């Protein structure tokens, strides 16, 4: 539907890619670990290796959780929004098909949060 307005109505998106000066937004969420409340957001260049996401950002945020030490990284299921994908850790975000404002969700089978609550 088009907006109804009294005059021409055309304003730019607040979060258009060009506003990030060569970077792009990326959201990360650890499924069934809702103690962290919501996903977190990063602005990264598209040539950032995927391994940095895991070794740096995911580790810094989520290692507070007692489940984190028990993650078997070979078993992790990765999704880009609802689509399962298999990231190549050595390749970049772009090479892994990750674009501006994509949401990376990862599930760690067998780990369901504190006392299995999803938190």
């Amino acid at each position, binding site marked *: *539907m*088009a*907006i*109804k*307005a*009294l005059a021409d*109505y*055309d*304003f*730019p*998106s*607040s*979060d*258009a*890619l060009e*506003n*990030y*000066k060569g*970077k792009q*937004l990326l*959201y990360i*969420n650890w*499924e*069934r670990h*809702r*103690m*962290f*409340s*919501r*996903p*977190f*957001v*990063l*602005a990264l260049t598209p040539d950032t290796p995927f391994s940095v996401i895991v070794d740096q*950002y995911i580790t*810094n*945020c989520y290692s*507070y959780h*007692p489940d984190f030490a028990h993650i078997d990284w070979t078993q992790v299921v990765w999704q880009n*929004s609802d689509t399962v994908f298999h990231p190549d850790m050595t390749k970049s975000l772009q090479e892994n098909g990750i*674009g*501006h*404002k*994509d*949401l990376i*969700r990862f599930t760690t089978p067998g780990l*369901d*949060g*504190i*006392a299995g*609550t*999803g*938190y």
Partner: protein
Amino acid sequence: MDMKVAKKLGLKERYTLMTRDLAWDTTYQPMDKVFPQVTFEGIKIHDWDKWEDPFRLTMDAYWKYQAEKERKLYAILDAFNQNNGHLSVTDARYMNVLKLFLGSTPPLELMAARGFSMVGRQMVGAGPRVACQMQAVDEYRHFQTQIHSISNYNKFYNGMDEFAHQQSRMWYLSDGKSFFDDAITAGPFEFMVAIGFAFEYVLTNILFVPFISGAAYNGDMAAMTVGFSAQSDEARHMTLGLECIKFMLEQDPDNLPIVQRWIDKWTWRGTRKLASVGMMMDYMLPKRIMSFKEAWEIYFEQNGAALFTDLARYGITVPKCFSQTIEEKEHVTHQSWIGFYMKPDATPFHTWIPGKEELDWLSEKYPNTFDKYYRPVYEFLDQQEKTGNRFNNKTQPMNCQVCVSTIKFNEPGDPMSTCFRETRYKGEKFHFCSDHCKDIFEHEPEKYVQTYISSHQGLQGNCAPEGVDVNAPDFNPGDHIADYWKLDKRATGDFNGSEDQKNFAAWRDQATKN
């Protein structure tokens, strides 16, 4: 000589003279050019004279009545302040309710005042114009009296002085800010449904329970009196909102689908906004009145259902979100408090883990969900805090493009998973907290692509204090954002060990012991 004494005017006559008789139809310019806003939304009005004025209140009576309320209110505020009333509240944690309230509510009262001033100019009929102008003055008064009642606390406790600066900048205030920005940039009829009906009529009681009863239960005479002084205004506001709905529906059958969509939209937006109000009831008031769940059942499920049954004769149905809110009433406050607890450096108020008795109260009030999903994580976080490892999630949030809540609510039917929804518009991805927010976006994407999301603005380099080079290679927005927000460090962090906690204990000791 005989003098002819004019007979004193009757109420009805005076009302007519002071409202409808003051209006005229323009002749230098056609009416539709003077009042262009009343048509573009698609609402069809054939006869403005059919507007029923629900309360025959003239401006002169209004001034007298309001002035009397002001006198009483300020007498009580003065007495409360002179007697160090702040030391008679239940517990220093209560101050955090005031801090959250101050950032989130008076600025929105001011927005309501602006909105009703605009609508008062835009409407054609004299009846709605006068009513909107009165409401604009009411809302301005609410904005002022709320700030005045809290200003005394500001002398003693941290984190209250920058609320006006923070309102349009801070992450957790963005939901309320966007709520009013959305309403005020709509047309006059949508504004009336948004604020006059959905907010003032359908949801207002949920707001008043924690603020008026909560203040009374917790010994805050000042806030309680402010609340009571606003309540008689609210009765008028509710009537105006409902009258506007009925007027639109009676004027033309084509108005029904438009009005229904607005009701669906604004009931949902209001519900999202109330998640943090519910959190005050369940977590922040030291002495609780009732649970958010109980309040939702009484004021929304029962009273709301009765209202929509009444409107059924116009073809109106219960808002689309009705059943989802009933499922969520068991969850949203717990999810919200975890969301605030885990971010201790990013609010000008303190958070804490509820004490054992408080956890028991929550278990009792939420028998279906609290022990199953929430209590274990609170107990875990409590242990961590006691061993010096208090939870602090340093990352920046992901927010819903429409309601601007952080994306923290669960997938309907699955409390262990977060709900995600997304869409594409002009090649860009947009994310939402729910189907309802996604629907709202897809109806008017041109509007919601402009949403202000604090974390995104930080990453664009727009939230650094002057003098910081946002293009430096090592620029990290998280390092500067607290300064940009003018966040008082003393007001952040856990309540345990805070300056407020120590001061309150020391002052109360002085006041009550030798």
